[in-house]
């Protein structure tokens, strides 16, 4: 019977060697898919209870059976069988699509970036060997465009990784993490003064990837949206770790956000019109999505022309282990 595709099994309860329920119980593991119908002349409550609990019976029919009743039972059973089968196929299909999406992200991160990095390499080399005369600075323009394009690709990868990677909790040292994040932005505007206050008296466990995505995007914005004429540009980062949560604040004295835009800044591809900075409008959307994944919240306060402050709260997963 194992080699044939069986949809429905109808068995009599009272049989010489084993009962119908025993038979169903026996084949439960080898043939889990077919729907089971039990036929019996006796209406013993114990039998019925056994049938449902041990034999995973779909329907219980009394002998002598009514033809319509049996017909209906078979039809219903087949419908459930088909629906379950379809569901299994859909799951397989989804798994395949998921797998393809993962490979798509992988090739985006490699196949799209690789030629861009070659172009940057060529530009670097041409500067080293002085082989290109470029009085109008075209190479610099090419480089700026490539860096911008690469920025978009990196954001796309970040977005997909956030939506697809499993959340993983590890110990986080905020002082270290923040210094690392700042390190990658410091060169963009060397006049900015970074103030870091980390108050971490207890251990913190959280998803390192998502927390650094959040920090990187917010610090990047704080660095990018500075006032060009500000004599004392600064970014203040504060972290306070408590047993149940960490609260972080990222504050700048940059250009600020118009109050009518504040409700929209976390929307995908929203870009404020009051600045001419390059951007994709996806950074804060990724921040919001990453916070959703780890159960965090974000608040923003901003005064146009004076600065912006983001406040984030992230649950500490430390006490869930112990």
């Amino acid at each position, binding site marked *: 019977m194992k080699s044939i595709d069986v949809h429905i099994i109808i068995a009599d309860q009272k049989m010489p060697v084993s009962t119908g329920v025993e038979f169903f119980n026996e084949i439960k593991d080898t043939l889990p898919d077919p729907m089971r119908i039990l036929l019996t002349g006796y209406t013993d409550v114990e039998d019925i209870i056994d049938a449902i609990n041990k034999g995973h019976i779909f329907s219980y029919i009394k002998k002598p059976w009514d033809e319509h009743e049996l017909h209906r039972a078979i039809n219903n059973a087949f419908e459930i069988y088909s629906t379950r089968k379809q569901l299994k196929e859909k799951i397989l299909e989804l798994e395949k699509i998921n797998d393809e999406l993962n490979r798509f992200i992988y090739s985006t991160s490699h196949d799209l970036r690789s030629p861009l990095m070659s172009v940057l390499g060529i530009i*670097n*080399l041409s500067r080293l060997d002085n082989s290109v005369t470029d009085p109008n600075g075209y190479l610099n323009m090419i480089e700026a465009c490539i860096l911008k394009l690469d920025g978009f690709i990196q954001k796309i990868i970040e977005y997909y990784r956030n939506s697809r990677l499993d959340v993983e909790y590890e110990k986080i040292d905020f002082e270290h993490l923040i210094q690392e994040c700042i390190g990658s932005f410091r060169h963009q505007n060397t006049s900015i003064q970074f103030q870091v206050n980390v108050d971490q008296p207890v251990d913190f466990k959280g998803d390192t990837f998502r927390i650094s995505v959040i920090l990187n995007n917010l610090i990047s914005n704080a660095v990018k949206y500075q006032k060009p004429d500000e004599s004392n540009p600064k970014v203040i980062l504060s972290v306070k770790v408590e047993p149940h949560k960490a609260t972080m604040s990222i504050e700048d004295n940059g250009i600020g956000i118009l109050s009518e835009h504040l409700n929209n800044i976390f929307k995908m591809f929203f870009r404020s019109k009051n600045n001419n900075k390059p951007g994709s409008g996806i950074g804060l959307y990724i921040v919001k999505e990453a916070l959703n994944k780890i159960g965090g919240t974000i608040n923003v306060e901003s005064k146009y022309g004076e600065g912006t402050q983001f406040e984030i709260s992230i649950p500490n997963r430390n006490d869930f282990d112990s």
Partner: protein
Amino acid sequence: MISIPDLRVILIDDNEVDLLLHERLITLQQISRTVLAFNNANKALEFLSSNITLPKIPPTVLLLDIQMPEMDGFEFLEAFYSYPAKIKSQCHVIMVSSSLDYGDLSRTYANPMVLKLLKKPLLASELKSAIAEIFKDM
């Protein structure tokens, strides 16, 4: 300047432009006089196994790309792992990649044969300090 006179650099990368770029970079910066470029990891393995007949194997830096068709960087390392100590002890592996894939990066850091991971585009300053670090005790 790196002062290891017989240092040689072996480049393994399927991307011809990057091979050329890295070769030029190393020559221009006088990092090494000998640069051998392979666009296929198998060919590099063949070359390295032919080295066994040399009386003395010169100090060698391998710049190894991660993603390559046929044999990728990790498969190369797996095959190279079984090479005789005479060759292996002279070869120092630096991985070079434009990958941002978390899996690739953590596999690279976890591999004990990889001394350093450099991101593309390869910068002369980074390559120089990586090589200086490798040979600082020699």
